[in-house]
């Protein structure tokens, strides 16, 4: 079919941050589906909890301290996370490299404490359905945490190579910041469900 040029796009930039970039939307899409998975798992837990009048099924209370420490660590990590985002927007390679190292460490720290969370649940997954659901919820979030920390570490290494200084990479850092917010956000309701809901009953 015949064509007539009617618009010149040569002046467009080659990368954009946040909602301008397709990757940001892709990340949002994955958050939506993972968030749905979390919501359904939490829903399943609440469904069982309301179904059985003696919920917790005579199990001992979980020890909340490791979980509380993880929560505090995660919330504290939001501050450097957003400082890093500012540098990524400015495409400032030096501070971004430092920020990525900091965020890798702040990802590993809650994972270390997470190790102590499982025994602190004071029940095994195969004891009863209450135990199963605690392990499932904690397991889901741990998987989430491990994959994002792995991703952060790889990106950190990448930022130290000659591939680091590129618009696309700074966009990746921005999306990594965005995703970490999501990892922290999803933890809060799970934390409340695991450690504080059993204390209500």
């Amino acid at each position: 079919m015949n064509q007539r040029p009617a618009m010149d796009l040569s002046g467009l930039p080659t990368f954009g941050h946040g909602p301008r970039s397709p990757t940001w939307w892709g990340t949002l899409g994955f958050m939506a589906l993972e968030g749905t998975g979390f919501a359904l798992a939490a829903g399943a837990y609440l469904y069982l909890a309301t179904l059985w009048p003696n919920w917790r099924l005579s199990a001992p209370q979980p020890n909340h301290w490791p979980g509380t420490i993880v929560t505090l660590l995660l919330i504290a990590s939001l501050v450097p996370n957003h400082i890093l985002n500012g540098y990524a927007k400015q495409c400032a390679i030096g501070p971004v490299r430092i920020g990525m190292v900091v965020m890798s460490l702040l990802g590993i720290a809650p994972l270390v404490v997470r190790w102590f969370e499982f025994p602190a649940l004071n029940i095994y997954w195969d004891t009863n359905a209450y135990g199963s659901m605690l392990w499932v919820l904690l397991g889901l979030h741990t998987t989430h945490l491990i994959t994002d920390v792995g991703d952060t570490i790889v990106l950190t290494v990448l930022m130290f190579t000659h591939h680091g200084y590129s618009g696309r990479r700074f966009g990746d850092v921005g999306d990594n910041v965005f995703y970490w917010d999501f990892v922290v956000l999803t933890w809060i309701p799970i934390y409340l469900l695991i450690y504080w809901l059993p204390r209500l009953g």
Partner: protein
Amino acid sequence: MSSADITSERDLPPESEASAKGDIAPERDGPRDTGLDDASLHRWLARTWRTPRGIIGALSSVDHKVIARRYLITAFLFLCLGGLNAVVMRIQLSGPQRGLIGPDLYNQLFTMHGVTMMFLFAVPIVQATGIYLVPLMVGTRNIAFPRLNAFSYWVYVSGGLFAWVSFALSMAPDVGWFAYVPLSGPEYAPGKRADVWAQMITYTEVSSLAVAVATIVTVFKQRAPGMSLDKIPLYVWALLVTSFVVVFAMPAVMITSTFLILDRLVGTHIFNPAEGGDALLFQHLFWFFGHPEVYIIFLPATGMVSAIIPAFARRPMFGHLGLVLSLIAVGFLSFGLWVHHMFATGLPKLGASFFTASSMMIAIPNGVQIFCWLATLWDSRPVIRTPLLFVFGFFFIFVIGGLTGVMLASVPLDLQVHDTYFVVAHFHYVLIGGSVFPLLGAAYFWFPKITGRMMSERLGRWHFWLAMVGFNAAFFPMHIVGLWGMPRRVYTYPAELGWGNINFFISAGAVLFFLSFVLFAFNLVHSALRGAPTGDNPWDAGTLEWATSSPPPSYNFARIPIVTNVEPLWAEREALPVATGLRVDVRELVVSTVAEAHPDIREKSATPSIWPLLAAIAVGATFLYSIFTPWAIVWGAAPIAVTLIGWFWPKGDPEDEG
């Protein structure tokens, strides 16, 4: 809109320069398409966008059309396999107490039939059609996240192979396509059959989730300049809404299958009422996915109908806005119906009434769609060709299926016919009428675009009538035999019940219906080899996929079109307005704003890569191994991580740097 509207922002200065002066320098630039003559433009783009030669090249392809073609062929093969399952079952049921197959094989047959048709045929094929058409219809050069798209195909194939190899080893799931506990739980389903169901479900859903995200981002961010929300073709709207339904529904079945395999493999008690779990929880979770699943299959088909009708009615669709709103309404309402699959489980009456009401409510937006289609045809002189015949078939069959659906939404009737052939008849009317007939119409409609050749019209008409007669002969009597009380999923029945003759008739209809697909397959192959060659736009349709050659080149469009109307090719018959200024030496496409489709970024699109295949192999092997030991997840994590790093690590292509 003009080029003056486009905000030009800085590109990144070279690192050394930036640290030295903090100044703005030009990007590492390459040749642009501005002013290039058509022949050189084609040479440049063909070299930049080609899929590499050789077997590794083919396995590395990220071209959405190549991937979609593979998907379409694979899904069609699974349709044939699922159809053969059905034929075998119908031969067994054609008379009372036939000894052709025993109960164990029969259980595997109906499970494989359901699993194959739902997870390996219906969902993949509607998504595959979208993978092919959506980027063309929105006027872009490739789907968003092309490597994720390639990965999704490999995961899908490995899931399908896994299920069918298990079947060959007599290890196929035998617990029905929805695998209710406690039947599928550790106590009543020893062996590995239910595990095959669980893991196969999980990975085919990984695949369709990946496609859904890629489709959403393609529609949101890669539309041609000027294609504001009100100018998006209805088919693309349908795929967009479907993808959202996938994003919110598929995680439910992944959670269900994961819970099931945990119960079976590591001894959790999520579905075990003896230890504080609950068996009905399985049904809630499954149908929270399972009902939207019906609309995941149906909505893209309505999009196909909305694409076919204007082309043959020779006028734009009546009630475009109403159709878009109906699609969105159906998408939302599809999440509010799941409990109507569970009326026979003794739920509280008030809850059941709520779900009766919502089940009836979804008939409203679907009715709006049907009236808009009829109004478009009414106000036109339709050109009746095979695609439109299948649309007529769709009206007839789907309306019957919809009406029995409204009947089943009422609790007393549902209790009476629950788990009988009445339900089997209903959902085949809905699924085959609502999805397969439009798909067949779509095959005739878009075949010339995909292959550059027309399908035989004469064989097409034979195919249509054979399918129409065969389908109704096979499935209509099932309503009757269902009302007589014949339960589904029985491998035989005694002669005294008097169901012999009607079942013989049903089986004859089923064979006829199967033969219609044999004829269709023949028409596909014959036309692909010998069909009459066709031009860009054989139907004189109005959407962008018809603006490029048939089959489209690897880069889809030599220049990105500018959209001025919902049927852009009808609005710009003299010459299509196009945009210039893109690089031709790297894979560049236009990223635009979500609502207005205002051009915003010249984005690089990913180059071919073998890593998505390797990642899919790592994921597939991990899932397979996980049937045998939970440690598979630990051991599998390393190869998965390695392949993902290989996938994302830049290889020095300009496309990686941006």
